[in-house]
């Protein structure tokens, strides 16, 4: 690879990674406008729970995630990217932890979990949903900007547990800044200083 091609590849990887982390910020803060900047308008998301146009997926998931979960974190691990000119493919490992609202227990986990473990933790009104898998993405660069043209979510494993979160005793009393849906989360106050 020539020096110029190597530099172009590095910049492409930087931009693609920023799209991937922007998706998680958008989802975990329920920021619909931000999520739409991740996909091309004609992009597709095959997400299991929703398959179709990516901007319609954004409308759907930003509404529903706040109904399903009190809080969600979508953590990205390994990110393997192959760039070829104006297109790229990436595989990104996902480890997601979400706190399920009690009204959604049956819808999210089904009856077996609801009977065996639901609400049986330190917290009776929340359960913990862990899903691990991979985002398989195809990217296109248009006018110098990289966005997702197709996303496929792969499910590798999940785990479901009663929640033992503590907020009001022990060391946890010192925790004074908690994440939130929407613009009240402290990440929005942060911009470059």
């Amino acid at each position, binding site marked *: 690879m020539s020096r110029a091609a190597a*530099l172009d590849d590095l*910049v492409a990887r930087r931009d693609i990674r920023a799209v*991937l982390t922007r998706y998680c910020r958008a989802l975990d803060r329920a920021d619909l406008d931000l999520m739409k900047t991740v996909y091309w308008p004609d992009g597709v998301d095959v997400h299991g729970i929703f398959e179709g146009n990516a901007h319609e997926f954004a409308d759907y998931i930003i509404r529903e995630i706040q109904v399903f979960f009190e*809080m969600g974190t979508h953590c*990205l691990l390994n990110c393997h990217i192959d760039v070829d000119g104006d297109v790229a493919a990436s595989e990104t490992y996902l480890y997601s*932890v979400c706190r399920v609202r009690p009204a959604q227990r049956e819808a999210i986990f089904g009856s077996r979990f609801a009977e065996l473990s639901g609400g049986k933790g330190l917290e009776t009104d929340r359960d913990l949903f862990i899903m691990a898998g991979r985002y398989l993405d195809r990217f296109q660069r248009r006018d110098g900007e990289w966005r997702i043209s197709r996303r496929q979510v792969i499910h590798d494993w999940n785990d479901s547990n009663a929640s033992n979160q503590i907020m009001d*005793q022990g060391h946890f009393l010192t925790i004074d800044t908690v994440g939130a849906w929407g613009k009240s989360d402290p990440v929005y106050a942060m911009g*470059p200083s």
Partner: protein
Amino acid sequence: MAVSDADIEDLIARRDIYEVLTRYSRALDRADVELMKTVYWPDGIDNHGVFNGNAAEFAEFIVREIQNWFEVTMHGLMNCHIDVDGDFAAAETYLFAYHKVRAEKADEIFGSRYMAMFDKKGLDPNHHHFYFGGRYLDQLERRDGEWRILKRQVVMDWNDNRPSGEILDQGMFATLEPRGERGHGDLVFSNTPEAARKLEAAE
């Protein structure tokens, strides 16, 4: 497409900033206070909940206390979203932290409600695991070409606490050595480019 000088500058800034972030985890998990102080500017601030104030004082506090509270910690970094603007930058870094709580500190760390429900309930009856999911919101500054943290805010998204299911002496786990440790005895400190060079010379 031609890559601009600004892009190259930006790539180098991101490399340096990411290295500061991972250096913090190494310093904390290996309890290396001198290394941790290289992560912040001397006038830096850390708002960590358990300690809010000058970052060098935070480093002294946390490297001492983390050893009192926990036998083992692992502060794993995940998503890292960085915005660079000249000599300043902002970074949001997702954190997944594991803590093995010392038996004698369990009451203090977890409080009475947890202990009433879970004391002595694990496979390892004396230990409990505390998991923390959150984010580091960092503001960084470049001074004389070096990036360090000017202000850190820790945000909690969730925590979870469990009786320990750790196994060290049976099954497959009996074969898993070495284990990580605090201090410069951990193998990370001897895993250097120099060691790689010696390995090549020996072949």
